[in-house]
């Protein structure tokens, strides 16, 4: 028997037992089997994810809505929904907030649940707003450096250091001297949900 992906003899015969349509056999040479197994270890059921996502979007959106959704962009890491759709991976923690309405049905589909019931960190690790602000400022700093605006880069470096040292009560993303025009509160028990209003933070 030949490998399904090339002319070499198939020496690996992998059975997918969890396909909804029943067991499916895949016949591959050693090289392609390695690729196949590394793409799709039980650890990361990504193929299934892409399928679920595609189906769900088709059911719920018109082509026009879909095109619009694809352009939606995370203000912190810059990922677009289209990129997430293609790669199956999110860009940062804030994506769970800015793509929330599109992710919730997906999470329900995958997990049959949308609320975490497990372990929680023992200590509060600071406000998510502050954490996302740090990600943004680090990138602004890199931009400043590549624009040779070292004065600005220096300021940002100091601000990041302050934020990292946990002085988030005094420097919240809304009041920090920066290009960010958001007015969100810095900390609250509502977690990063809070930041939703700040979704306009830069482009």
């Amino acid at each position, binding site marked *: 028997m030949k490998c399904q992906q090339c002319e070499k003899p198939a020496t690996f*015969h992998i059975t997918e037992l*969890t396909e909804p349509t029943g067991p499916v056999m895949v016949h591959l040479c050693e090289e392609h089997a390695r690729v196949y197994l590394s793409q799709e270890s*039980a*650890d990361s059921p990504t193929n299934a994810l892409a399928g679920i996502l595609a189906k769900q979007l088709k059911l719920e959106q018109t082509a026009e809505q879909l095109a619009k959704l694809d352009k939606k962009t995370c203000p912190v890491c810059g990922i677009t929904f289209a990129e997430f759709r293609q790669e199956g991976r999110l860009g940062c923690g804030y994506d*769970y907030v800015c793509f929330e309405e599109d992710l919730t049905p997906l999470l329900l589909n995958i*997990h049959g649940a949308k609320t975490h019931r497990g372990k929680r960190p023992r*200590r509060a690790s600071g406000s998510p707003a502050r954490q996302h602000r740090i990600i943004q400022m680090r990138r602004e700093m890199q931009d400043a450096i590549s624009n040779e605006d070292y004065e600005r880069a220096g300021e940002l470096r100091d601000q990041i250091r302050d934020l990292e040292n946990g002085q988030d009560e005094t420097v919240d993303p809304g009041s920090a001297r920066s290009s960010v025009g958001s007015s969100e509160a810095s900390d609250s028990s*509502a977690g990063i949900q809070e930041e939703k209003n700040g979704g306009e933070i830069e482009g």
Partner: protein
Amino acid sequence: MKLEELASKCGEWLRGSGPEPDIVISSRIRLARNLAEFPFVRRANADERSQISKKVRGKIESIKEWDHLLYLELQNMDEIDRQFLVERQLMSREMADSEGDRGVAIDTEERFSVMVNEEDHLRIQVMCSGLDLNTAWETINTIDDLLESRLNYAFHDNLGYLTACPTNVGTGMRVSVMLHLPALVITREIEKVFRSLQKINVAVRGLYGEGSQYMGDFYQVSNQITLGRTEQDLVATVNEVVPRIIEYERKARNFLINESEQDLHDDVSRAYGILCTAKKISSEETLHYLSKVRMGVNLGLIRSIAIETINKLFVHTQPAHLQKLRGQQLSVADRNIERASYLQGHLGHGGQANSP
């Protein structure tokens, strides 16, 4: 501690010392964690990746309880060494094949490892011999606490631990048990067994399926979902399913012994004979015959070899291990010769390698 030393040793989880060692090879749990103050790995630029890597390494090395840990920067390692760590199951293949700043911290007893900059910033992994998920959970929970007290994890009040892939969000936990099910394969019962388990939230995958000339008869059972259940629930789900599969496999083994002991004994002995006498042998062929011999040892048809030796051979006969043990690079053809001689050294003369 160097990789060469690790190569000749045998990881704790391979010893066959845990519960149900004849059928369950190992129990594993991994937790996916991310730092709140960085984008996820795929979206991080080179500078951010190196900061993540430096930060996590620093914290890991500051943990007093972990002074025996080996931290390896993968971007500086050659391909055989990376491949070696994959064969050893201390890290994923994705980790070996990707690029950029990344590392893995290894407990030298191989009870756990922490991958840094894999798909998530941290992938903590614990392995135990046999069916022992409760120990695995207790261990990984403690490790996670140690790291959490030093790092800011990305955590969302409603969604739990945030991960790059939404399939891992919540607990970020994957519980998996590796099973050796040769009798269910021979009796062609395996599909039926797994189909009967389909409604439970577990994923099953055959690593090397039936119908093939070369196969290892290994299957992995793991939880499918990560959100909406406690970690203890997820462990319990897998813990409930596995004993049922074990029972089916035991029944199938008894059936084979009662109905066709001579055929089985013949098959197992031939496999043993080939492994002991071949002059060159591929890794797939080795896997195929080792699987038969493993069952033969467990059924008392071969008495001269310890199960630990067989478990070890599954790992030590893989390409990077052979090259590490030999101390030089080998072509495929040379590996096949080296593999045959390695097998003879450890299986021949009544299994001289019985001692640990």
